[in-house]
């Protein structure tokens, strides 16, 4: 037994699912589709390469991403979603199933009919009732006739048979996030007056018939159903939690083999899986399901990224299988590291939802933390031994620099990192210290870099500023210099403004090196300005006004997190003046002008610049003729953010 397995005995305990032996209690969940496939539903080599990595994660059960079951594409939710409505798609499914089995795992194929969120190529979606959309990127509804309901169930059953023929051992249908099954179950979207609507018994009829249809079509293979423990739609007339559990009871009664407990709809006005939700927050839903349905297997994993927490849950009977997806996208070696007692090396999912932000813009998903995700098929993205061992100096111990340093060191290069600060992390550390959501998540990135760099023997020289004089002192000692020194704020931007000398640098404030007063004006409504404003308001009870020259705040914030800032701004009572520019800073406040040319005065004892991020281009010019190879990464090239810094650093590290 590997050392970590003894520490997590419940997680690595074998189990059964139907007639299948499962090597541990971990189910890879089909958390979202990848959008790596063809527009007409065929699996690509890119997808197969990704699934080869997933197959090797060490999970006992692996769920392949959702495929739509109907030839019209009414069930199709995503731009490049898989299809399984015809045998012509099967050869690639066969390869995936075989690969998963080869790794000793049980392959499950998810069938995903998106219902209210489907019909992406059609201009309409199908639903139980005529309930319009609340998010305008979805299609207007068309009500399903009873004949269409029967057809839909038949298509699901045929899709399940097809998956089993392709080599999958079981299938899964999903109501997660408001798909067709959820639309029938929910009072919000099911307002039918026939036997498929009205009472909860009637609303659950479609689900019961669907389960029954699939079970009859594939009697020897287990079926999973993903059901909401909480829709988070009850304010809008959706199901209460009690109703959600009554629907689970119906599913259990008709013989579903496993219930996957999920949370939330895509259009729900509350957060469900973002990083503002603490890990373990939704566990009570799974515990309730397990208590109510002791003879039905329960799997769960929403906002439960830590194997240690999962092991405790298994011990306490919260669920039978830990369902995990995004943490394995962030670090496909998570389970192996847990088994080998190397959890300190795990690259944690930080819940940025970059994956979903891209998906809902019809882009292939990527991962903030794992730059190789989606590029598994490309040799250029793999960490391979370097042809020539080089001495590499990396300037900056932020995410771009550390990612580059670690990747280069893994390839055999001799790497030294320099940073003028006294700690690893760069500006990410400053953001984490002011973050109202989950500072731990952001700090986990820093501690990951600290641990892995130490284990790889990377020398990190802190409190060391690299400038031209320093470079001359190390001339010819290094083969490569990577400038990853991050961004600074362009203080000249406001040099022409009267009183500009009173302005504080937002990054200095974020790092805790400059102190603010009780009435603060922050220039810039991007992520730095908003993060500072929220922190100063919440932790120091400062009266804060954010001044943004653009029409909207949060312009540089991850799309899936914009709402969170907007919500905090309102909750905390932060004033945001958009389309406004600074005219003058006085001793007791600032004078502003809005888009209409109107001038206002805002009282303030502190003015903070939190905009005009500037790359470190001067370093490139200074060092150009002092080293063989000179490269840049992250904000030092173009100020953007964490994801781009990590991607830049990695991409550079694999090719040095």
């Amino acid at each position: 037994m590997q050392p970590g397995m003894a520490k997590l005995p419940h997680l690595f305990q074998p189990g059964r699912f139907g007639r299948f032996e499962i090597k541990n209690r971990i189910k890879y969940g089909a958390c979202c589709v990848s959008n790596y496939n063809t527009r007409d539903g065929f699996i690509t080599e890119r997808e197969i390469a990704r699934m080869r990595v997933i197959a090797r994660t060490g999970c006992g059960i692996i769920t392949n991403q959702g495929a739509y079951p109907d030839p019209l594409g009414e069930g199709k939710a995503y731009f490049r979603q898989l299809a399984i409505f015809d045998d012509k798609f099967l050869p690639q499914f066969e390869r995936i199933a075989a690969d998963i089995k080869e790794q000793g795992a049980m392959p499950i194929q998810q069938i995903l009919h998106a219902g209210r969120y489907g019909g992406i190529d059609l201009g309409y979606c199908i639903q139980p009732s005529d309930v319009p959309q609340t998010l305008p990127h979805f299609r207007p509804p068309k009500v399903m006739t009873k004949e269409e309901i029967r057809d839909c169930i038949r298509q699901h059953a045929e899709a399940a048979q097809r998956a089993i023929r392709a080599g999958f051992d079981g299938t899964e249908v999903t109501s997660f996030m408001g798909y067709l099954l959820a639309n029938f179950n929910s009072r919000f979207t099911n307002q039918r007056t026939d036997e498929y609507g009205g009472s909860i018994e009637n609303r659950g009829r479609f689900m019961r018939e669907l389960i029954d249809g699939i079970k009859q079509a594939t009697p020897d293979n287990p079926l999973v159903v993903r059901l909401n423990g909480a829709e988070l739609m009850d304010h809008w007339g959706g199901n209460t939690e009690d109703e959600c559990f009554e629907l689970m009871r119906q599913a259990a009664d008709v013989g579903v083999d496993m219930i996957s407990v999920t949370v939330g709809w895509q259009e729900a006005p509350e957060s469900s899986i973002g990083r503002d939700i603490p890990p373990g927050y939704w566990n009570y839903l799974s515990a309730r399901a397990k208590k109510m349905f002791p003879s039905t297997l329960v799997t769960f994993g929403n906002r439960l990224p830590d194997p240690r927490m999962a092991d405790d849950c298994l011990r306490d009977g919260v669920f039978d299988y830990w369902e995990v997806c995004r943490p394995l996208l962030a670090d496909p070696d998570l389970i192996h590291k847990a088994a080998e007692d190397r959890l300190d090396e795990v690259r944690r999912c930080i819940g940025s939802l970059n994956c979903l932000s891209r998906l809902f813009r019809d882009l292939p998903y990527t991962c903030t933390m794992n730059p190789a995700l989606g590029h598994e098929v490309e040799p250029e993205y793999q960490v391979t031994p370097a042809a020539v061992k080089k001495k590499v100096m990396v300037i900056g111990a932020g995410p771009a620099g550390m990612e580059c340093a670690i990747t280069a060191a893994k390839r055999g290069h001799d790497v030294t990192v320099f940073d003028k600060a006294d700690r690893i992390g760069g500006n990410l550390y400053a953001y984490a210290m002011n973050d109202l959501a989950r500072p731990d998540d952001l700090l986990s990135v820093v501690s990951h870099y600290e641990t892995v760099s130490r284990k790889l023997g990377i020398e990190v020289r802190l409190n060391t500023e690299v400038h031209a004089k320093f470079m001359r002192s190390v001339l010819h000692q290094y083969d490569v210099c990577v400038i990853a020194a991050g961004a600074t704020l362009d203080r000249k931007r406001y040099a022409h403004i009267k009183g500009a000398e009173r302005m504080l640098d937002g990054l200095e404030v974020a790092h805790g090196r400059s102190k603010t007063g009780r009435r603060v004006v922050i220039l810039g409504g991007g992520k730095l300005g908003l993060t500072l404003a929220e922190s100063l308001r919440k932790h120091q009870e400062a009266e804060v006004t954010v001044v943004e020259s653009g029409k909207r705040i949060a312009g540089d914030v991850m799309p899936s997190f914009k709402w969170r800032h907007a919500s905090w701004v309102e909750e905390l009572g932060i004033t945001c003046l958009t389309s406004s520019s600074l005219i003058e800073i006085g001793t007791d406040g600032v004078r502003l002008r809005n888009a209409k040319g109107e001038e206002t005065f805002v009282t303030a004892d502190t003015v903070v610049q939190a905009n005009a991020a500037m790359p470190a281009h001067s370093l490139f010019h200074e060092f150009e003729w002092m080293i063989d190879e000179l490269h840049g990464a992250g904000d030092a090239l173009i100020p953007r953010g964490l994801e781009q810094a990590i991607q830049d650093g990695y991409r550079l590290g694999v090719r040095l």
Partner: protein
Amino acid sequence: MAVDATSDRPSTPNCGVDRLPSPEAWLAAAAHHGELFAPLDPGVRIALLARSSPTQMLVWEAGNAGIDAQFEAFAGYTASGADIVLAADRESLLEVCSAVTGRLFEVLRAGIRSGHIVCYVLKRRCVLEERGLDELLDALGFAFMGACR
């Protein structure tokens, strides 16, 4: 003026049928937010209704001569001919009534975010934007609404 006898909250002067604001107040609200309504194409319709009794709706309708506001019978979402339907619960309707000549869009935005107002969109974003609803959607907070949060 209709008053809900079951409510222990004071009625507001702007409340009309079914606790909806009066058309006059609704018209004044549109005038107060001229920058949001001026770009609307003729024919754009935005409806407000009470979720508890969705029989009447109060409609802003853009015409060649500007914005009009009137009560109409609500016969279903599609039949409403609206581009957007705001379906508000009792509590938020009171707040809407109180805010018609002031911070109306702030109240609507907060109501949508908290779930007290359901904002149904009967056309896709690209169509709504073509019809001049870009700024108005922004004011309702759509820039900050996203899937899978």
